[in-house]
Each structure stands twice: as C-alpha cells, then as structure tokens.
C-alpha cells in the first residue's frame, strides 16, 4: 500500500466507507470530517436549494449545517445512516431560516411579471416534453416555483419538501421535525391544497391575460 501512486491513493481514499471516516472523526481527526463534508456537500446544498433560491444563502446554510453536525458529532449513533442524521440537521437549519423570514402574502403570488410571466406562458402553451426541457434551462422557472412555495407556512413547507422532494415517510418527517405523525399529515394536506390553489390561480390569471 505504501507504494501506491498518488492517483491510486486518491482513489483508495475516495472509496473509504463512511464508518471509517466517522471513526476517525470520533478519534479526533477533523480532516476526516472535511472528507465527509465534501462527500455530502452536493446533497446538502441540494436540500437547501429546495427551500431557498439565493445561492449565497444556500452555501451559508450548507456550511452552517456542517458546523452543527461537527459540533454535535457525539450525538450521532452508528446504527443510523450518516446521511439520515445529516439530513435532519440540514432540515432544522433550513427550518430555522424559514422561520426567521417573513412569509410572502398569498395575494401577491398571482401578481408577477417579466421572465416569470413568460415562463407561465410557456407552461401554458408548450407540450409536456418541451416544458421539462425548458425548465432545466430557465432560472425563472425555479424562481416562480420558489415564490409559490414561499407562500407556505414554514411548517407546511418543511413537510412538502421532505415528503415530496426527499421522499420521506410521514414517520421519518415526524422524527426529523420532532412532531406527531398527525401533525405531519395535516401539514402535508394543507400544503398540497394551497399549492394547487396557487397554481390554479396563476394559470387562471394567464388565461385571463390572453382573453384581454
């Protein structure tokens, strides 16, 4: 092993299992945590992006999540997946940030213009295949989606993202948020109903504009 070329050594380090790195962190090697952080950074940032569109904020929240994870590393239990434990931390960091921010009033959702209005026009006119392709390239598609989701209460948004985007069960969401399963179900119902209502009003507004 000592004679490994730098390339092979990098490869062998890259495939080291999480357990090994976690054991190193426990024994005081902070560099191992840096490796864990770089391994999960994309996943963490992706989850933060489900809540916030500002890239700088997303990076800050990802960093904050890793800091909390590092600070509370002693609470991690080896029997649970590291990603699950980390996801709970990220979710709570994002939840704290959502609660700090003022919720966008629902009435303002239909009142938009510029690139976002153009995106609604495309959604209304393109074929489903074209919509999927266009959404990948258009930032305004994401901005409008964030505006829609911003109309949700922080609790409802947490449930919406964790259930829909992360594909977690009611029980898992309840465990992460420290809520009852009934609360998660109610929040999910409310969130979906409001999202449908908002999307309906946006498309209705689009049709009204065309008629005008």
């Amino acid at each position, binding site marked *: 092993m000592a004679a490994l070329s730098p390339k092979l050594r990098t490869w062998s380090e890259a495939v080291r299992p999480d357990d090994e790195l976690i054991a190193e962190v426990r024994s005081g090697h902070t560099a191992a945590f840096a490796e864990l952080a770089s391994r999960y950074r994309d996943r963490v940032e992706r989850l933060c992006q489900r809540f916030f569109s500002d890239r700088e904020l997303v990076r800050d929240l990802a960093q904050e999540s890793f800091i909390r994870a590092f600070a509370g590393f002693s609470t991690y239990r080896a029997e649970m997946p590291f990603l699950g434990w980390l996801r709970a931390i990220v979710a709570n960091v994002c939840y704290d940030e959502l609660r700090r921010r003022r919720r966008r009033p629902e009435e303002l959702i239909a009142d938009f213009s510029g690139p976002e209005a153009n995106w609604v026009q495309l959604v209304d006119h393109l074929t489903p295949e074209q919509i999927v392709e266009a959404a990948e390239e258009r*930032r305004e598609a994401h901005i*409008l989606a964030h505006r829609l989701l911003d109309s949700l209460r922080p609790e409802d948004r947490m449930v919406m993202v964790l259930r829909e985007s992360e594909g977690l069960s009611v029980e898992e969401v309840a465990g992460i948020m420290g809520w009852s399963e009934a609360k998660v179900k109610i929040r999910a119902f409310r969130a979906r109903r409001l999202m449908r209502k908002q999307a309906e009003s946006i498309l209705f507004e689009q049709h009204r504009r065309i008629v005008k």
Partner: protein
Amino acid sequence: MNCFEARNDFVAFWQKTLAAERRAQLLTHLRRCTTCDHSFRMFALTAPVLYSATEPDSRLSPARPIGFDTDRIGASGNPPIAEHRSIVRTLNRVLPAIAMAAAAAIALYFAAPPHMTFEDAIAGDNSSVELASYPSTDSFFGQELMAQDSTAQDLSDE
C-alpha cells in the same frame, strides 16, 4: 393508462426516469385527457424546485468555492459563519450597554465639579490651554473656518 396512473408518473417523467414505453403512454394520455394535462401544467409550476435534480446556473450570483475549514474549527471552535454571527449577536447585546455607560459617564462629567476653573486654566502655565487654542485657519470637521469674525465685521459696518 388511467388518470391515477398518469398522475403517479409525473415525477418520474419530470426526472426523465420513466421507461420509454411508459413515457409514450403518459404522453398519449396527456394529449387525450385535458384534466390530466391541466394537472401536469400545475405540477410543472412547482416541479423545478421540488423534483429537479439540479438548478440552472444563476448569472446573478456566480458560484464560489466552498470548503469546510476544519483547521479553523480545530483552532478556535468557531468557523467563519458562526464566528460572524456570534460577533453580531454579541455586539447587539453589548452595544446598548456601552451606549448607556457612555451616557452615564458624560452625565457624571458634567454633574461633577471641575478640578480646574476656566480662570485657572487661562491664567496658569498649563499645556491644556495650548491644546484648547486653535489657529484661525484650522478646519472644523473638515470645513474651513473664516479668518475673521463675521459678526464683529457686520457690527463695525453699521
């Protein structure tokens, strides 16, 4: 394919993980069923955030490299963001106390009897007198002082 099956396939269709045959069935269904077509368009309004794997690059905020600086954590226990936030929080807590202390000190200064009267100051050979005298050309908060006393000038004109 019925409406229930079609709607269940929305996410996989959006993420392009739907098998070709199933995808064709879905598209056929969407062309025929206006209700599901409308539902898909509503779904498409939030799907970019909820179901997309990636987000388009923002031209407004270019990507900057991010790293987890373990050296700083190891050294101080306070990495950059937490450090910044804790400084702000500390300042928010401490600043009112500093302001109150300053106000109390000023009040005490004016309330307490002076150690040296004005007459003492100008009569005696004291360096503080020198410090208190300004040449007429000096600036006062960045503004040039007038060389002459304008009020005296006006009175003499009358």
